[in-house]
C-alpha cells in the first residue's frame, strides 16, 4: 500500500507542469529505479515460473535445491555465469561481438518506460506510446544480428538470420493487431488505452489478442517459435559463442522481452492495472504473470515449428487475419463511434471462430502441402 500511495502521488506529480522545480527529475529517478527493479525481479520470477512450471507440466520437479522451492535458482545461475571466463573467438569482430548484448538488452528495458503501473504511473506518458513500443522492440533484432555476425560462427549466423526473418515477418500481424486496439481505444498512449478498457479488449478484440499473442511469442523467439536458438539444430543459435556476463545479458534479454511482451499484452488486452479491490500495481503484476504462465503453457505443449512453417504461419495465416480483423474493427468503430456495446463480444468471438476455421482450411505450406 505504501508503494501504491507513492505511485499515486508520483502519478499526481507527473500531471504537474514539466518545469515544476525538481519534479521531473524525481519522477525520472523514481521510475527508472522502479522499472529496473520491476524488470529484474520479474525476470527472476519468470525464470523460476518457467523452470518449475515447465518441470511440473513434464511430470518432474524442476530446480528445487537452491533456497526454498528452488526460488534462489536464478541467483545461483547468475553467480555461476558471472564467474565464468569471457571468451571471444579469435576471428570474431570484437567490437560488434562486445556491443551486441548491450544493443539487444537495452531495448527490452526501454519498453517499460511507457507501461503504466497505475493511473498515469509510468516513466513517460507518450502520446505515441504503443508506436514507441513497436519501434523499440525491433531494435533488439539488430543486437541479435550483431551477435550472429560478430561471432563469425555459421550456427550463430544462421540463428541470427532466422531471428531477423521471424521478427520482420511477425512485426506485421503484431502491428495490425495493435492497430485494432488503437482504433477501439482511440489513443496510442498506453495509459489512455487502459482507461478506455471498460470492457477488456480481449473480449472486444479476441482475434487481435490471439494474433498479438502468437506474433509476440514469435517476435521474442519463445518456443514454439524459438528457431533462432534451436538447440538441436544450431547448438545455441546466435549466442553460441557467448559466455560469462555477455551470455547473461542475452539470457536476461530473453526473459526481459518476455516480461515486456507480457506487460504489453496485459496492458492492451487484459485491462492493464484496472481491477477491483487490489491495488493497481498488484493487478498489473498478476496479469503479467498470468500472461507469462500461458506462454509457458504453450511452450511446454507445442513442438518447435520449422522455418517454412514459421513463415507460412506469419504470411498466410496471421497476416490476412490481421487485415480482416482491422477492417472489421474499423467498420464497428464507424457504426458505433462513441463506445462499442457488449453485444459485439459474442459477435467478435463468432467472427474469430469463423475466420480461424476458414483459414485453417485454406492454410497450406509450400508447394500446396497440407500435412506437416
Amino acid at each position, binding site marked *: 500500500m505504501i508503494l501504491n500511495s507513492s505511485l499515486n502521488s508520483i502519478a499526481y506529480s507527473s500531471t504537474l507542469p514539466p518545469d515544476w522545480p525538481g519534479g521531473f527529475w524525481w519522477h525520472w529517478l523514481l521510475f527508472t529505479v522502479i522499472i529496473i527493479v520491476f524488470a529484474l525481479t520479474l525476470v527472476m520470477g519468470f525464470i523460476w515460473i518457467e523452470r518449475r512450471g515447465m*518441470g*511440473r*507440466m513434464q*511430470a518432474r*520437479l524442476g530446480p528445487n535445491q537452491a533456497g526454498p522451492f528452488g526460488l534462489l535458482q536464478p541467483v545461483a545461475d547468475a553467480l555461476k555465469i558471472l564467474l565464468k571466463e569471457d571468451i571471444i573467438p579469435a576471428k570474431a569482430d570484437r567490437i560488434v561481438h562486445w556491443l551486441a548484448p548491450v544493443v539487444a538488452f537495452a531495448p527490452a528495458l526501454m519498453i517499460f518506460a511507457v507501461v503504466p503501473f497505475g493511473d498515469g504511473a509510468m516513466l513517460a506518458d507518450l502520446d505515441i506510446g504503443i508506436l514507441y513500443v513497436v519501434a523499440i522492440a525491433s531494435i533488439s533484432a539488430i543486437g541479435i544480428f550483431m551477435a550472429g555476425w560478430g561471432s563469425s560462427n555459421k550456427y550463430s549466423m544462421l540463428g541470427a538470420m532466422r531471428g531477423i526473418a521471424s521478427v520482420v515477418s511477425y512485426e506485421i500481424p503484431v502491428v495490425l493487431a495493435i492497430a485494432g486496439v488503437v482504433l477501439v481505444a482511440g489513443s496510442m498512449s498506453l495509459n489512455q488505452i487502459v482507461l478506455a478498457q471498460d470492457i477488456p479488449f480481449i473480449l472486444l478484440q479476441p482475434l487481435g489478442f490471439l494474433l498479438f499473442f502468437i506474433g509476440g511469442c514469435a517476435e521474442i523467439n519463445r518456443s514454439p517459435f524459438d528457431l533462432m536458438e534451436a538447440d538441436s539444430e544450431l547448438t545455441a543459435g546466435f549466442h553460441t559463442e557467448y559466455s560469462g556476463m555477455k551470455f547473461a545479458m542475452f539470457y536476461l534479454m530473453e526473459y526481459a522481452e518476455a516480461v515486456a511482451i507480457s506487460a504489453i499484452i496485459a496492458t492492451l488486452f487484459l485491462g492493464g492495472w484496472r481491477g477491483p479491490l487490489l491495488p493497481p500495481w498488484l493487478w498489473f503484476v498478476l496479469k503479467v504473470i498470468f500472461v507469462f504462465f500461458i506462454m509457458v*503453457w504453450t511452450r511446454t*505443449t*507445442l513442438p518447435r515449428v520449422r522455418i517454412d512453417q514459421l513463415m507460412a504461419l506469419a504470411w498466410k495465416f496471421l497476416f490476412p487475419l490481421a487485415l480482416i480483423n482491422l477492417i472489421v474493427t474499423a467498420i464497428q468503430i464507424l457504426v458505433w463511434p462513441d463506445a462499442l456495446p457488449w453485444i459485439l463480444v459474442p459477435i467478435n468471438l463468432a467472427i474469430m471462430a469463423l475466420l*480461424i476455421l476458414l483459414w485453417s482450411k485454406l*492454410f497450406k505450406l509450400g508447394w500446396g502441402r497440407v500435412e506437416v
Partner: protein
Amino acid sequence: MKFERYGIGIAKGLRVTIRHLFRHPVTVQYPEQRLNISRRTRGNELIWDKVKCTGCATCAKSCPQGAIQIVTSTSMEENKYEVEQIEVDTGYCISCGLCVEACPFEALYMGYAYERAKYRRGEVVQANEQLLPSPQRQRSGYMYPKIADELPRQTLLIERITEEK
C-alpha cells in the same frame, strides 16, 4: 473433415499439459529418495561365504575379465583346500554374474551395491574379509530364488514425492 487442423489438436495438447501440472511428478529425488531395486539385481560387488567355499577357483576361471584371484593352500588335517587370499577387483567387474552361476558350492552371491565410486583404483579392490556378508552388504537374489523371496519387493513408485530433505 479432420478437426485436428482447426486448433483442436492444440487444445488437446494444452489440456494434457495442464493436467500434468496438477499431478505428482514421477521423478525420484535421488540422493534423498531411493527406489527399491530389483531383488535379482547384479550389483557392483560380490558376497563371499567363507564356510562353504572350497577354494576350487571355478569362479576365477569363469570370470571373463579375470577380476577374481584366489590363492589356496592344502590343509592336510582337514583334507581340503584352504583359501589364503581371495581378491576381487570390482573395477574390472562387468556384473555378468558368471562367477555366481559357476560356483558349485553356492558360496558366491552378487551384492546390492551401486554407489561404489572411489577416488583411487586400489580402493575398489575387495579382498578376504571385505567380501564377507554384513548388514550393509546384503546378498541379492540373483541365481538364488530363496534369497530373493526374503528381500523387499522392487518398486518403481514412491508413495509421495516431496520436496523435503
